[in-house]
């Protein structure tokens, strides 16, 4: 028993190093994609203290819009531009009709409003584009397809999908740009202020309307990127929305307010759950991936209740 838990998995790892590498790579890629979803959450949370439940559906919505437009005959790049436009409009609408009237309300109310938004977008998206899964227009967008295989040791094989490499690169660039933007600029500080206290932020002249429009737009762009990358792996369909839950442990691990946290959290979860599922999962019948991420996050939390990079929860009287 102890052997199969503590030793055997490592023996297996050592026996097939190429496979271990492949597992790590798959975990890495999954982690990057989780991180992308989490990033969208972080942006909005940072800027308003709102946990944006709709981020997952925004991913689907953005992807569907892109593919849907293309299906209607719009050239790929033009469709991309138009989709960005649509996400901009969505940001404006959300700011105007959801966030603005709910200024200064408790977090949970804002959370609820984004759930309402989710319903609306699901209905609207399916109404316009139908419910069929659509294939991502990977090639048309000039994204790499295909894969490369590397020989490792004798007979070992590591297969890397080009699209996965592209996803990792794009995600890292995105995280970098956003991290700089939000930490080093005036807007960045204003965002954190807004998240702390809406009313005080208003009172010092921070324009919530403008800020929220900006971050929702940024989150929309992140959603679009995520949609393209996930879509390339499977299909663009509403089933993707469910994967967005995986962003939760990622977020919590990284800390709700940290952009680098999203990527670190994503990688820990991505790699952790792959290793767990492949090497330990069989001990209990497999399928543990569905909860392992949450357990990993939970264990981290017991030691750091605010996540790895999150802001300390202030307790003072």
């Amino acid at each position, binding site marked *: 028993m102890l052997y199969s838990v503590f030793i055997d998995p490592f023996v297996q790892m050592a026996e097939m190093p190429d496979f271990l590498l492949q597992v790590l790579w798959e975990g890495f890629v999954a982690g990057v994609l989780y991180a992308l979803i989490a990033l969208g959450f972080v942006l909005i949370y940072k800027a308003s203290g709102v946990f944006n439940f709709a981020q997952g559906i925004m991913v689907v919505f953005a992807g569907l819009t892109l593919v849907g437009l293309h299906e209607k005959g719009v050239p790929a790049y033009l469709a991309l531009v138009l989709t960005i436009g649509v996400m901009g409009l969505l940001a404006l609408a959300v700011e105007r009709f959801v966030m603005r009237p709910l200024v200064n309300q408790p977090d949970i109310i804002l959370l609820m409003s984004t759930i309402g938004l989710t319903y609306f977008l699901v209905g609207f998206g399916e109404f316009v584009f139908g419910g069929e899964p659509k294939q991502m227009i990977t090639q048309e967008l000039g994204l790499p397809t295909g894969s490369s295989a590397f020989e490792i040791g004798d007979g070992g094989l590591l297969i890397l999908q080009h699209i996965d490499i592209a996803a990792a690169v794009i995600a890292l660039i995105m995280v970098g740009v956003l991290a700089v933007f939000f930490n080093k600029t005036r807007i960045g500080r204003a965002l954190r202020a807004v998240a702390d206290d809406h009313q005080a932020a208003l009172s010092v002249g921070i324009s919530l309307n403008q800020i929220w429009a900006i971050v929702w737009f940024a989150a929309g762009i992140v959603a679009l990127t995520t949609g393209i990358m996930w879509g390339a792996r499977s299909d663009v369909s*509403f089933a993707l929305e469910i994967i967005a839950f995986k962003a939760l442990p990622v977020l919590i691990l990284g800390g709700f307010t940290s952009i680098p946290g999203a990527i670190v959290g994503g990688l820990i979860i991505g790699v952790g759950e792959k290793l767990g599922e492949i090497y330990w999962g069989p001990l209990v019948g497999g399928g543990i991936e569905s909860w392992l991420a949450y357990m990993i996050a939970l264990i981290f939390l017991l030691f750091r209740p605010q996540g790895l990079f999150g802001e300390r929860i202030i307790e003072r009287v």
Partner: protein
Amino acid sequence: DELFVPLFSYRTGPYAGSGIPIANGMHDYLTMLNERDGGINGVKLRIEECETGYDTQKGVECYEQVKGAGALLINPYSTGITLQVIPKASVDKIPVLSMAYGLSAAAIGNTFPWVFNPPDTYWDGASAIITDIARREGGAENLKGKKIGYIFLDAGYGREAIPLLEQLSETMGFELLQYPVPGKEMQNQSSQWLNIRRDRPDYMVMWGWGAMNPTAVKEATKIRYPMDKFYGVWWSGGNDDAAAGGEDAKGFRTLNFHGVGSDYPVIADIKKYVVDAGKSQVDPAKFADNLYNRGVYNSMLIAEGIRKAQEIAGKPMITASDMRNGLENLDVSEARLKEIGMEGFALPMKLTCEDHSGHHKVYIVEWDGKDWQKSGDWFSPDVGTVKPLLQKAAEDYVASNSPWPERTEPCLNK
């Protein structure tokens, strides 16, 4: 007056990808009958879809809704919903037609007088796939020591085939490896396929649905699994499912029990009376693809059931319990197929009081990179193995659901 035929369908949610073509096919065939023949024997059909989203809870709701409205039969289109409504329908006396899905044991007509699962049960499907594998290996004895992987949607549907596969693995001596895919992880199967890569099964069998199928096909091509050793049950045979893998998915094969393509008079009629008349929701590019045709086949069973019921009842307006008689006495002959424009589209089929499924012949279609192609001939599942197991499963069902009502419905085709 009209005959109320509710169709449970799902054009929304994670399973819409498979649900939409099916719903279109079912809907369009029945509409065609209305348009072309003015219904069946002069009675128009009232076709109403109830959107379930493949969600059992909504399915129950749909059931309650149509039950009150005088439904002729229930057509749940989800194994989960079928399992839910079987006990209810048996009490409410509404026949359930679960065509090639649902509870395999429901084939035992004496236990489940109100449930029908023609032309084949899942166990027939599983046995057919193993039969084909055995054929390719040059005989059942060569399966000994082989590894067969089973990747399935971890829900009532995917698990339905496991008892049979386990049984076969025991008798035939192959090793069965199971790879469950949780419903909410359908689009994220990299772990399962990593495991498959490590275990290197000789054959893969898939029981997938909705977004699970295209993702699996893609993942299989990614790990460079030999696609011609990758089998799907009939429900993994959507055109979009295989197309996700594109050229790389060439060789992927699934079971089938009806024609592919549009070269049949019945399909031409649907096009003429329904699609071209703007009465269908189908995307013209996807007209007559594999799952669409399956919907058509499903509706043919409904229509033929109604006809039979009318014949037995001796009047065109029938009730749900007449409908049960119709289905139980269903006998679609070669000649009848020809009459309804389905010659070559389907094989003749027949149900009896004892056997509500029929264990009919199936064949294999293979993906050529663009479309499904028939590969090989129609062949029979291993009925000798399947039947006794079904009998036992039905007994188990009765035992665990006691008091289960005795069959009181008379058997007319005796």
